[in-house]
């Protein structure tokens, strides 16, 4: 059994490791205990700015600090970042200020808090903003590494992390292979490619295992960077496999599936099936129950793989 961890813990760890850089500041909106910025607050209270329950203010205080040479990491629940979308758009992305916004508790996997807390549109909306890098890592190791890279990126970003634990995939891999903008090929096959992000990466691996029992060899990609999309890798696996499935705990509209299909529409006629939340809201339930209810779990990904292959 592999180690289990939540990506938000990787975020909290990264902030601590970034603290040597005295330009790094952390901003909170009363959810530091949840997003895991609290560890930084404990060690570096003078560089932690409480904005109370005020996300709009938090985004623009971050922008002001970035304009003065600081590297702000601001976090709240993914759903509440959306309240400050226009601040992110006009105050951060437009002047290209390197504010790093982290939305934790993304997706229906967040669970029993119910639909009001389950952001299923964050990746889609932030992906529309020029200048903004959009990330959704799948384990705590990659979250930690990618967060640390953001500090040097000099561009604004949005990163979604998840509340609940998922299998850790990168404890024993060469960490230099985890880079913003580069998808990671976790499994190589020639029949179908499953491009996944976040909590569905481990589900995609399970689906690939099930498919291999049926004699189908699937490629699995961890596409932790939604924007800029690793289009070279998409083209490579489209050409090799001839069928693609995207998988995300996010609306089927506009997220990873949207990004991949937009790209493929300009480069090839590869059949594509999108696994995601089917234009509906969630409800209260355990994380695993939500993946079943929303038809996001491994069996549903495997079914989508068959559909995609049948369209070759």
């Amino acid at each position, binding site marked *: 059994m592999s180690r289990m961890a939540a990506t938000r813990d990787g975020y909290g760890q990264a902030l601590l490791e970034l603290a040597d850089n005295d330009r790094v*500041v952390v901003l909170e909106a009363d959810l530091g205990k949840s997003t895991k910025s609290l560890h930084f607050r404990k060690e570096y209270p*003078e*560089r932690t*700015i*409480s*904005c*109370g329950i*005020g996300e*709009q*203010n938090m*985004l*623009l*205080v*971050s*922008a*002001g*600090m*970035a*304009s*003065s*040479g*600081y590297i*702000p990491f601001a976090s709240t629940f993914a759903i509440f970042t959306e309240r400050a979308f*226009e*601040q992110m758009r*006009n*105050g951060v992305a*437009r*002047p*290209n200020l390197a504010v790093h916004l982290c939305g934790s508790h993304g997706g229906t996997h967040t669970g029993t808090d119910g639909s009001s807390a389950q952001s299923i549109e964050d990746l889609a909306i932030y992906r529309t903003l020029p200048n903004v890098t959009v990330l959704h890592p799948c384990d705590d190791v990659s979250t930690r590494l990618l967060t640390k890279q953001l500090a040097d990126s000099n561009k604004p970003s949005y990163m979604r992390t998840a509340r609940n634990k998922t299998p850790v995939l990168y404890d024993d891999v060469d960490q230099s292979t985890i880079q913003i903008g580069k998808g990671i090929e976790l499994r190589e096959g020639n029949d179908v490619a499953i491009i996944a992000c976040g909590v569905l990466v481990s589900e995609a691996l399970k689906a690939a295992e099930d498919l291999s029992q049926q004699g189908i060899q699937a490629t699995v990609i961890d596409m932790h960077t939604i924007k800029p999309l690793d289009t070279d890798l998409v083209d490579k696996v489209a050409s090799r496999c001839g069928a693609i499935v995207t998988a995300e705990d996010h609306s089927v509209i506009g997220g990873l599936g949207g990004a991949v299909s937009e790209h493929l529409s300009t480069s090839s006629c590869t059949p594509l099936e999108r696994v995601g939340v089917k234009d509906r809201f969630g409800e209260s339930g355990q994380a695993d129950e939500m993946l079943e209810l929303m038809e996001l779990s491994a069996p549903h990904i495997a079914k989508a793989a068959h559909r995609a292959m049948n369209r070759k």
Partner: protein
Amino acid sequence: MSASISELEELARRCRIEIVKMVYRAQAGHPGGSLSEIDLIAALYSTTMRVRPEDPDWADRDRFILSKGHASPGMYALLAEKGFIQHQDLHSYRVLGGICQGHVDMKWCPGVDFSAGSLGMGLSFGMGCALAARLDGSERRAFVMLGDGEIQEGSIWEAAMAATHHELGNLKVILDRNRIQNDDFCQEQMRMFDIPAKWKAFGWNVKEIDGHNMEEIVEGIKFLDSSNDGPSILIAHTIKGKGVSFMEDNPSFHGAAPNDEQYALAMSELGVVE
């Protein structure tokens, strides 16, 4: 830094001429709020702002955040007078590729510290600048110009509360209380009742002045300079469109350009000799 009252008044008059010219040339823009704010901005830059026109990105400069960013002609006119940009640049107002974008933008125009255009954002941004200054151990200040209609935005009050919580004595606000917003008089759109009391209740240092009386403005700026125990706000009672008779107190000139006849009259009233 020791401009006389008459010099400040003359500076503001020259800026008013440029404001009307910019909006007339573009046949678009926001003259009313530019004319109401200009005495305040002219005095601010002439008496207290620590900036270097030849080095507009100087890291330790005071920041000026025009949160009511539609009133950009006033800002551009002042920046030209102070040498941040050339007078010729004013012809680029609202013109494709021009540094004088419709709303002030830090990515386009030297001397602009904030990309404005969406109301309710500048106070938070200024708070970030003030926090950064404190972390740097710097004496620099963040001055923020708000419109009165703008404080109907809820995010203003998030920032108002947070600035007091963080005891930001280096955050200084001027409120251009011209009593008119886009559609109509504020009184008709959203009554704001006792504005000074609201800021006081949020823990701010508050002073009210006549925003067109240069002596009172200079005193008001001294109040901002000397109030360092927490955030401060100067509520300046102004007249929208001040200096051009037909624009004064007229909601129609929040965001409209004068026609040829009106332009000639405005130039005449502002003392332009043909």
